[in-house]
């Protein structure tokens, strides 16, 4: 396991990721964006290791810059004019800042989704949605079963054709050969699907009241996590509703100042965003203590 948070019940994961992503979109105060970005990157690095740093510098950071540039060059609101552009429009401080904020939001959302992809596996997803839609859930499972099968069969067909002396030289001939191979795989897939359907029917598929089995159960730790997240979400939402965290960038940059309420909410927000990391640390400490005793 890359993270103890992966072991949590899917509902815990769903609430957490739903929370961070929605909050990231709603709380566009720089302090809160900073917290979310820092925590998402930290957790992504924990989950994916060093390659994540590469992703950040080669993809995410340029993306941030790109979004900022598009905004700065195409939007012309704002009162603080910096200079005049070649098309006669003016470059404003507000459009640059708002662009950067939006870019940060894009990066944050993508990073949290990267974490989501590591934590919420197919099984977890199926647990969350399978109960309501058992047939669609089964359909997704079948697709996930078939895909590696077909890719493997394509390899087999290509090999078989090569060994039968059917591979010819030249780019066009190669493409043609690949097309025939794909066509062979399609036939193979469709023909074999008949047997799969028979196997499903013979095991009672189509009876009324199909259920969807999953192996996840709520543990005390999960319940604690849910309770903690609900309290944190309530406090942060209250902070937002009562106006402690406001930020607007158009036409003038107006940010809520560092009031006690803002600092208070920000602390809660930070705790929420770093929750999986805290959870991991707690697990580590407990493990070390157990290990030290024996």
């Amino acid at each position, binding site marked *: 396991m890359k993270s103890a948070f992966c072991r949590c019940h899917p509902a815990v994961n769903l609430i957490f990721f739903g929370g961070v992503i929605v909050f990231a979109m709603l709380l566009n105060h720089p302090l809160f964006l900073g917290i979310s970005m820092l925590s998402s990157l930290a957790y992504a690095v924990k989950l994916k290791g060093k390659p994540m740093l590469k992703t950040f510098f080669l993809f995410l950071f340029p993306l941030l810059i790109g979004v900022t540039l598009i905004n700065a060059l195409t939007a012309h609101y704002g009162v603080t004019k910096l200079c005049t552009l070649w098309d006669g429009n003016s470059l404003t401080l507000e459009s640059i800042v708002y662009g950067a904020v939006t870019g940060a939001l894009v990066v944050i959302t993508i990073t949290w989704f990267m974490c989501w992809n590591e934590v919420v596996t*197919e*099984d977890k997803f199926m647990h969350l949605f399978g109960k309501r839609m*058992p047939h669609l859930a*089964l359909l997704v*499972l*079948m697709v*996930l*079963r078939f895909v*590696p*099968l077909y890719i*493997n*069969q394509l390899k*087999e*067909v290509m*090999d*078989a*054709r*090569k*060994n*039968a*002396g*059917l591979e010819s030289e030249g780019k066009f001939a190669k493409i043609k050969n690949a097309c*025939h*191979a794909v*066509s*062979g795989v399609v*036939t*193979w897939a469709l*023909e*074999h*699907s008949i*047997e*799969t359907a*028979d*196997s*499903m*029917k*013979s*095991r*009672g*598929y*189509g*009876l*009324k*009241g*199909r*259920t*969807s*089995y*999953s*192996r996840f159960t709520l543990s005390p730790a999960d319940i604690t996590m849910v309770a903690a997240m609900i309290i944190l979400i309530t406090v942060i939402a209250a902070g937002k509703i009562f106006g402690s965290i406001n930020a607007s960038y158009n036409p003038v940059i107006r940010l809520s100042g560092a009031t006690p309420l803002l600092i208070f909410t920000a602390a809660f927000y930070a705790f929420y965003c770093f929750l999986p990391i805290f959870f991991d640390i707690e697990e580590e400490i407990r493990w070390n203590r157990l290990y030290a005793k024996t």
Partner: protein
Amino acid sequence: MEQIICKNLSFSYPLSDSNTLESINFSIKKGEFVVLCGKSGCGKTTLLRHLKKELTPAGKRSGEVIFNGAEISTLGDRDAASKIGFVMQNPESQIVTDKVWHELAFGLENLGEDTASIRLKTAEMATYFGMQDMFDQKISELSGGKKQMLNLASVMVMNPEIIIFDEPTSQLDPIAAGNFLTAVSKINRELGITVVMTEHRLEEVFSCADRVIVMDSGRITIDCTPDELSEKISGTDEFVKLAMPASIRIHSQLSKGKSPLTVNSGAKWLSSLFEEKKLETTRIEPKEFEIKSNAIEIKNVFFRYEKNSTDIIKNLSLDVPEGSIFAVMGGNAAGKSTLLKILSGALKPVSGKIKIFGENIKKSGASVVAMPQSVEALFTRKTVREELAEMKASAEKTEEVIILTRIAGLLDRHPYDVSGGEMQRVALAKLLLKDPGILLLDEPTKGMDAEFKTVFAEILYKLKSKGKTVVMVSHDIEFCSVCADFCTMIFDGAAACVRDSNSFFAGNKFYTTSANRLSRHIFENCVTDKDVIELCKKNLK
């Protein structure tokens, strides 16, 4: 108690004027192990499908199928699904979901069971079948044998009273097939589950079956115990004889009455036959094969898949004489298939030399073709005719190959509509159109019944007589013993030895044919039924 009764069952498919099943009558008692055999296309599968409500084919049907006292079509859907299990031929395509635990739960989900009871039942089944270790695994990572075992377990988890098997081991290697049949006979013995099975490999099922039913063109011709069948075997069709275990095959040629069913009792019978008799000839001379030149020369070849992985092929040297049928045997993962891939040029050895007809392997491209293990991979067109046309061979050549492989009647059929054995021959035809000097075959007899195997062997003989070299990788000891000129065993990435097939099998103690195991205490070098019968006749005169 009679669990299934078939009364006067006749059936014909739509658009067909002849009956596929013709007044079938039989009954099966609870807890029986019944083996159903017959030529391919004799209606076995159609009959089996009539015993499973959901799979009953559409068509004209008369007569009755009674399950537990009631007509099977009146059986409730829920009971029909859970009480009668059905396991099919292809392990891969029966699987529905992507994980082992989910596949086990699939049937129970359909029945609408709640989470707690599914948890209990899947756990119980996984433990019974020893699947705890693979419970979390992705199914795509399992071997064919494991997959078929999973199919059995996911039927068993629904608590059936009877399980129907349609050639369940035909796609498995002998070791996996043996394990599977052991598991089937275990659930039959320990849990009293009725088993109805069609099977090519009668050798292994014969000793655990209670009854054998033989079908021929839609009718039941024999319905008796294995013991009784062994008595009347000489009066039956050729295909029944071919499908019998070696002890029965040999016995039926030499004397009348009850045959021994196993190798052990066969050996005892053979001893009693020659008690206090002086034996004149006790040795069969191996077939002579004159080696002119070598088609393939492999010298000190090493191969591994990745730079830092262990060697799959280690210092392997092997010469394959031109014009011979050369069998490469060995256990799973011994490197047999890898060797074939190296010979076909699909993989390149890390070091060592391979010469094909004296030339370096790269230059000889067209003269080597390989038949894959699942021949379906070779088919991409709509009809067999188009498949052959794809090879761009001359009309005469095509005609010649069609006659050689006996596929003239199949030309306008879709390649997926022909039977397994026919598919194999179509694939072979396709390859022969390249006019290769060397033919590589990977498990060619997989899924073939005994009769198809003899036809296939004849085709190989004809190829040999034309000077072609055939290299086959196979688990099929009986087939190799009949067909091959030379055999070798690959173990741990190297060839153990190369001998002519008689001395090869006679030299092995376990990895050898039944005929050899049952006669080795009296005769030397006897490998096939023919050898044993020949020597017996000589000595009995």
